[in-house]
């Protein structure tokens, strides 16, 4: 059991993290105080063309130099600083969060046609797999993940989440069940502009992991959710699927349902299931995925975890509980429950 909340303002109006914190904190019973986190899009407008790398260092003195050297080998660090944190009685600061604004430098790799995103992905995977006291847990542009092991309100206060203003937020309250809670295991999980929060467990993790690692991604967080971030990166960014078709691949209709579809639909759904069989996720889950343009919520095919959506003007909310949405916006309308396996999608207007 975990608690999730996501909101997108389709007109890109900024919301500070204060109400997200309150909303998540009222779902405290969905967690166990072992992990909580937030991601906000639109928070670094001054560095919007740079990859904002958020890093947990075990020890600045021992671990930071190697990362600086690695990043400078591949590109330019235009700015870096410690992420401001504020001591909380219930959070043991076992890592020091740091942020870099980084861009791969073309002049360092003449004639390379590798996209910047692949270079950044490579660096994230390399650093996280080596486990040399540095963990890159956020690597998108103009966005940042803030997470730690603790209760939602304590993690929010640790980062003073209300000081950040974003047009799209995801937040998560963790109740780890199969592996222990730690800073890197808190949600959201992020790669490039993808962020994922998840309630449930992915029992097909082994299959999904083998599949995604065959494309060069590396699973290093000791928990299942990170495969979702890598799967959407593969399916949407690399393979060019729409968000809707990507969800169809991850939580496809049953074969007997496909048999009843009109011929063209059958053909499409068969092709997706056959092509992306190892990406199919089993087990109970309710998931929110975000990128810079959209917020997508969906559940497993037999709806073993809760998910509610609501709208208010330009805003779309998705959460585990209606009350959590109403904590942010008491006048929210169109409260509804997405059908099992079918996505609810909110997209910015431009």
């Amino acid at each position, binding site marked *: 059991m975990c608690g999730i909340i996501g909101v997108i303002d389709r007109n890109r109006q900024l919301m500070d993290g204060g109400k997200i914190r309150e909303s998540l904190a*009222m*779902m405290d*019973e969905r967690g166990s105080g072992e992990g909580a986190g937030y991601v906000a899009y639109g928070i670094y407008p001054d560095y919007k063309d740079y990859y904002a790398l958020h890093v947990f260092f075990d020890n600045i003195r021992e671990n930071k130099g190697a990362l600086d050297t690695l990043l400078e080998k591949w590109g330019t660090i235009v700015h870096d600083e410690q992420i401001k944190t504020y001591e909380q009685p219930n959070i043991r600061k076992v890592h020091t969060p740091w942020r870099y604004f980084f861009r791969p430098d073309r002049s360092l790799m003449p004639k390379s046609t590798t996209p910047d995103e692949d270079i950044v992905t490579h660096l994230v995977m390399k650093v996280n797999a080596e486990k040399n006291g540095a963990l890159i847990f956020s690597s998108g542009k103009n966005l940042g993940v803030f997470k730690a092991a603790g209760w939602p309100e304590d993690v929010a206060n640790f980062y003073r989440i209300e000081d950040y203003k974003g047009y799209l937020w995801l937040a998560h309250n963790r109740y780890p069940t199969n592996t222990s809670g730690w800073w890197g295991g808190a949600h959201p999980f992020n790669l490039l502009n993808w962020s994922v929060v998840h309630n449930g467990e992915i029992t097909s993790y082994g299959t999904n992991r083998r599949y995604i690692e065959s494309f060069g991604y590396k699973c290093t967080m000791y928990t299942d959710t990170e495969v979702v971030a890598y799967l959407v990166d593969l399916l949407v960014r690399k393979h060019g699927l729409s968000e809707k078709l990507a969800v169809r691949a991850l939580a496809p209709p049953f074969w007997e*349902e496909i048999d*009843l579809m009109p011929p063209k639909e059958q053909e499409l759904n068969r092709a997706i299931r056959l092509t992306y069989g190892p990406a199919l996720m089993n087990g109970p889950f309710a998931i929110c995925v975000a990128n810079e343009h959209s917020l997508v919520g969906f559940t497993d095919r*037999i*709806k073993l975890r*809760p998910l*509610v959506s609501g709208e208010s003007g330009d805003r779309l909310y998705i959460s585990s*509980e*209606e*009350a*959590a949405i*109403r*904590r942010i916006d008491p006048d929210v309308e169109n*409260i509804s*429950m997405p*059908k*099992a396996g079918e996505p609810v999608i909110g997209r910015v207007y431009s």
Partner: protein
Amino acid sequence: MTTVHIDAHRLHYTPLNQKIRAAIVNGATEIIIDNVLGQRFIGDGVRGDGVTITVNGVPGGDLGMFMSGPTIIVNGNADHAPGNTMDKGKVIIYGSAGDAVAHSMRGGRVYVRDNIGYRGGIHMKQYMEKRPILVVGGAARAFLGEYMAGGLLIVLGLTGITPISERGVGSGIHGGEILVRGPVDELHLGVGAKQTLATEEQKAMIKPIIEDFAKQFGIDPVPLLASDYTRISPASARPFANKYTWE
């Protein structure tokens, strides 16, 4: 009649439930809770016939769990599993409810004016005079009456949505019955469930329940009573006898 008002604004469920229990002990027969938002477990395990608890707002999950006697009226939507393992009394929801409504219920009634989520009435049971009833005014999602062992579910389809449009109705049902106003597509029946057209006798059995539901929400019962009903019941008392056991 003694009335007690409780303001639940930013009040955690533990002190809220303590206030409810204290009010009942002190002889309150009507408890009105305002500004409810997300508090789970409201009224759990409380006893007291003749006590009415009015919840104004959107409560959290497991409302009225293990409750035995009181009536809870919710002016808003309920979250997951209202009436979970409830023993006696009534839960009346002026709105919709989430997944697993009336989960493992063992007695009493749950009325939901609008729609319910997945797995309504899952594992509902009955014993001797204890026969729980869930009535849904609107529609139910997939796996209605999953593993149902007893009791009665009625779905009326009054919200303009087909009452049953998803799979797995009565999956593993081995006791109790589900009555749905209008036809149900055979495709939506789960393993171990069968459907028949409700007989006049069976309709007569649900008549007083539908009249009570209609009165509660100010609905005209006449068209509801004139409709045909589909009755979904166990195909056998041991639907998975060959799956999990051998003789």
